């Protein structure tokens, strides 16, 4: 969980080469679970997939998907960022303030400021983790409190409501394009761009190498500090984007916006097959995980399951994902051992 050398050989799942077809296979169970859940719910209650139902489903998942993609970048490098909920809160409140204090500000400018603001907050995390060489869990736990405190100090009891924002901004979360809400399309774009970056770009591949074995990555000549910093920076930018979209999607933003979101995000990534000790996982998986976690809530409502059961089921789902991961890793290890034995 940090960029420093550490032996986790027993607790971490056996490492696979993430670019092998086996790892790509890892998203399949999540996808199947998602499709099965949606189909089953649809058969029981056809209203579930009505245009409005689908739209709500996608809207609910949008923000979590973007945050899960950013978190995946960080987790792949064997770090973690717990401060994303607080970053989202600060940026969402900042967006509300911008619209209230600068009447007529163009919406693209608001997006740019939000991204830059989130990026700056993420950069603080990245600097503290890479320069001071302190575990990310501790640093981002600290900034979780600090950012939340700053948000409280800034907002006080003040809240901005949808009425304070221009109608075109709010319509981002209402208007659809080919049945998809605009903000969901933004999230899909984010997933595609980051997936291509991780699969194709040199620096993207480096992130996996760092997460698999930081010491080996350093010996190999990968600028570990710079790459980890970049991962935190990107995560901050994406949390900023999520913050701006949050302000578009939800009615009110205030001091407590985004509180307690961090563990949901990590859970979404874990359900999507991102190994918590780094080195394996994909943003597509994380996005599917986020979609599955948010869909299950709506599905249970549609199936008229007692709402109190929802969280327990989410918990079971997370545990199931970890166990599936473990079994897949064991199978891969056995197969690798067999093939190595044959080669010898």
């Amino acid at each position: 969980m940090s960029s420093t050398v550490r032996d986790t050989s027993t607790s971490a799942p056996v490492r696979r080469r993430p670019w092998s077809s086996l790892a790509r296979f890892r998203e399949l169970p999540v996808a199947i679970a998602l499709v099965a859940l949606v189909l089953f719910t649809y058969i029981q209650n056809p209203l579930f997939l009505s245009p409005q139902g689908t739209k709500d489903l996608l809207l609910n998942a949008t923000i979590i998907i973007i945050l899960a993609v950013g978190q995946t970048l960080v987790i792949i490098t064997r770090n973690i960022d717990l401060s994303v909920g607080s970053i989202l809160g600060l940026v969402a409140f900042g967006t509300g303030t911008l619209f209230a204090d600068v009447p007529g500000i163009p919406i693209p400018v608001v997006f740019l400021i939000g991204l830059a603001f989130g990026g700056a907050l993420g950069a603080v995390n990245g600097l503290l983790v890479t320069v001071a060489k302190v575990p990310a869990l501790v640093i981002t736990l600290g900034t979780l409190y600090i950012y939340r405190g700053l948000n409280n100090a800034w907002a006080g009891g003040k809240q901005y409501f949808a009425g304070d924002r221009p109608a075109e901004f709010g319509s981002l979360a209402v208007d659809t394009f080919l049945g998809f809400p605009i903000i969901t399309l933004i999230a899909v774009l984010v997933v595609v761009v980051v997936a291509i970056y991780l699969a194709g770009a040199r620096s993207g591949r480096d992130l996996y190498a760092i997460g698999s074995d930081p010491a080996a990555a350093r010996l190999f000549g990968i600028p570990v500090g710079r790459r980890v910093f970049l991962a935190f920076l990107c995560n901050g930018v994406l949390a900023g984007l999520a913050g701006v979209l949050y302000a578009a999607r939800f009615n009110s933003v205030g001091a407590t916006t985004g509180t307690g979101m961090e563990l949901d995000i990590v859970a979404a990534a874990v359900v999507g097959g991102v190994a918590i000790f780094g080195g394996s996982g994909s943003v597509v998986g994380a996005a599917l995980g986020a979609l599955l976690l948010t869909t299950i809530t709506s599905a249970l409502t549609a199936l008229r399951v007692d709402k109190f059961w929802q969280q327990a089921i989410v918990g079971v789902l997370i545990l199931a994902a970890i166990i599936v991961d473990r079994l897949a890793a064991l199978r891969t290890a056995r197969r690798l051992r067999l093939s190595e034995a044959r080669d010898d």
Partner: protein
Amino acid sequence: MTDTDTDTSLEVTSTSQTLARQPKGRTGLARILLGRDAVMIYVLIVAVLLFTLTLPRFGSPVTVGFLLLDVIPVLLIAMPMTLIIITGEIDLSVASIAGLTSAVLGVLWAGGMDIATALLLSVGVGILAGAFNGFLVAVVGLPSLAVTIGTLALFRGLALVVIGDNAVANFPPELTAFFTSKIGGTGIPTVMIGVVVVIAIFGVLLHFTPFGRGLYAMGFSKEAARFVGIHVARDKFWLYASSGLVAALAGVFWTLRYSSARSDNASGLELTVIAAVLLGGVSIFGGKGSIPGVVAGVLLIGTINYALRLGRVSDVVLIIVTGALLIISVVTPSIIDAVKRWVHSRRMRHELPQASALGKASA
């Protein structure tokens, strides 16, 4: 290529560094009085003195009472958490276990069970919840961070299933009165006796038993620990079970202190506990930390929060202070380390040019 060279030479200097330092290492009293724990305790004492002198209402039994009542849940859960983090694992589900215990206690009591049986059963549920974590982490061998994020959701979810959005409040008045009562005029809550016993048990366990030494060994290297005959899986299992037990006790305390059993009791407490434990000098990588340091860390956060609240500083600043304390406490040692290493390597280069040359040749 150059990278490899500097790395091996670094390794050589670091081993010779430990060799050179060994005789100079502090021993006996000096080691205790200048260690990380002692520094935490000094900071705590200074903070208490400072607040007593500057805040007129701080130095009173009322303060002691409310301050301790506020920190008791954190203090309790911090004990097993310290041991778990020392082994290199983590337990994020503690607050959810406390919530689940509270919900079970409430439902059993409301259902007409007598309070002693209800208490026993709800604490039993907590132990089971902890043992479930222990099974997944120690026996199955899954990563604890991921597992306990899952059980965090699961146990909180079960609390919701058990009690829904109801609240049970009509606990026996003599019992709730006991949980807020003080020992004589000192202002110290009576429950504190039990808390001290828990602290003592975990302190002795960690610092004075082979079991405790084994935990440090596990934190350094699980493989090595297994090779020297430590039952890694068994010990970890019992740690998680004990964490469930203590979290359940904290849940019972929470329920009876506020005389309210709700599903969202103690929610979010896990991060507060971990922040306090890390502030108390426990390394998140395992292998380092002590009970006195953690107790001082928990009390320090509690004292500062209480004093700031007395001084009419808003809750806003409180959160920032908690976060800043945490970051400062981990960044400072690594800065000091970096400076020490720099000074040392400079001296080594001046005094022993032949040693590092030799090291390079042999490597």
